[in-house]
């Protein structure tokens, strides 16, 4: 390691520590005042690290691909339909599912902050919360899709949903060809997080992941 690299590393480390110390101090204050129990904070973190993630949304999408009645119900009332699925039912009252078709591609953004269907997809990725996506998704969605190496036919309608209230939008991507007869579990493996935001497609069957 050169001197320059070493210096750079230390610089990053001290910046991180400053924030880290501030966070620790705040947690100490909140704990000492009797506002929060640290094990309760641990449990919240653990839930988002282990239980709540895109696999929840993938299960919903795979079921919609397999079960036409469920798909109809999901598009009619996302909250109610997802509520019938047991452990992935915790979506609150405001889930709207929007379907991609050969004619129309849907894409979700929150230009004002970071609204995102946490219960379906987990915590949003950094890019979703950052200025480049938030600023450009509503003005140049094809350009944004190009940043994801996604390109659509010129005539495909693009519909951008800006999450400006408490409604949460989940994109139902198109089922990949070549998956006839697949089980819901197999199909769920193809459903990526980005395909449910509208910045990607599901995996292609048989392609290396």
């Amino acid at each position, binding site marked *: 390691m050169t001197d320059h690299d070493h210096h750079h590393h230390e610089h990053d480390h001290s910046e991180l520590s400053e924030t880290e110390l501030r966070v620790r101090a705040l*947690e100490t204050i909140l704990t000492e005042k009797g506002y929060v129990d640290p094990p309760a904070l641990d449990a919240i973190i653990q839930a988002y690290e282990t239980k709540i993630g895109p696999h929840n949304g993938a299960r919903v999408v795979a079921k919609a691909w397999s079960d036409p009645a469920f798909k109809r119900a999901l598009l009619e009332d996302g909250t109610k339909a997802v509520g019938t699925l047991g452990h992935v039912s915790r979506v609150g*009252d405001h889930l709207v599912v929007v379907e991609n078709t050969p004619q129309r591609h849907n894409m979700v953004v929150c230009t004002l902050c970071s609204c995102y269907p946490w219960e379906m997809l987990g915590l949003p990725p950094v890019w979703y919360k950052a200025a480049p996506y938030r600023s450009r998704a509503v003005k140049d969605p094809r350009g944004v899709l190009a940043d994801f190496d996604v390109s659509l036919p010129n005539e495909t309608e693009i519909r951008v949903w800006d999450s400006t209230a408490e409604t949460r939008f989940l994109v139902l991507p198109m089922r990949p060809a070549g998956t006839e007869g697949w089980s819901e579990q197999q199909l769920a493996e193809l459903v990526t997080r980005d395909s449910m935001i509208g910045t990607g497609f599901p995996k292609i069957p048989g392609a290396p992941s």
Partner: protein
Amino acid sequence: MNGVHDMGGMDGFGKVEPEPNEPAFHAAWEGRVMAMVRAMGAAGAFNIDTSRYYREILPPDVYLSSSYYQKWLLGLEDMLIDKGYVSAGDVAAGHAAAPAKPLKHGKFTLDDVERIMVRGKFGREAQAPAKFKPGDRVRARNMHPATHTRLPRYVRGHVGVVELNLGCNVFPDSAAMEAGDNPQWLYTVVFDATELWGPDADPTVKVSVDAFEPYLEAV
């Protein structure tokens, strides 16, 4: 407020940079901040709209140069001090120096974790019939409130079509200022890109926002 957080349509922020196999948190402190915000909100120290407002009123240079969870931390500290749950002396000492202020829902403990995994309910009983219905043409008002609002600048003054009636909901503009739920009808309103961005915009693009009734006028 017309803050830097209202980013729709701004130029110059560069490419979107997806991170392969991104972890839930990039450092342990990020998780602590997220959990403290969720816990203190659930305990009744503030509502979700107030917490959004406190991030929006960070100075623009701070907003733009801070990471996501740094903004959450700064907003949380400011909010807890303003609402009297934490004192400046506590922060300076790094310990509880002043007495605690009772929380509306009491201490946040392990028993409360399950309930916050279910999203809050924002639907409220209607105070009046809905003024608009799907298919109606509406204009987003040319309004510039100095405090929290959820009507982004890029749609103001433009004409769109009501697509969905999402029911009567808590009005963030009121809730953020702790002025009550003030329930309002909420609609998905869809705009052509050419209406928003001019005749050279991509004619295949449509953009929708969820707009509360006070944001809209009939055309």
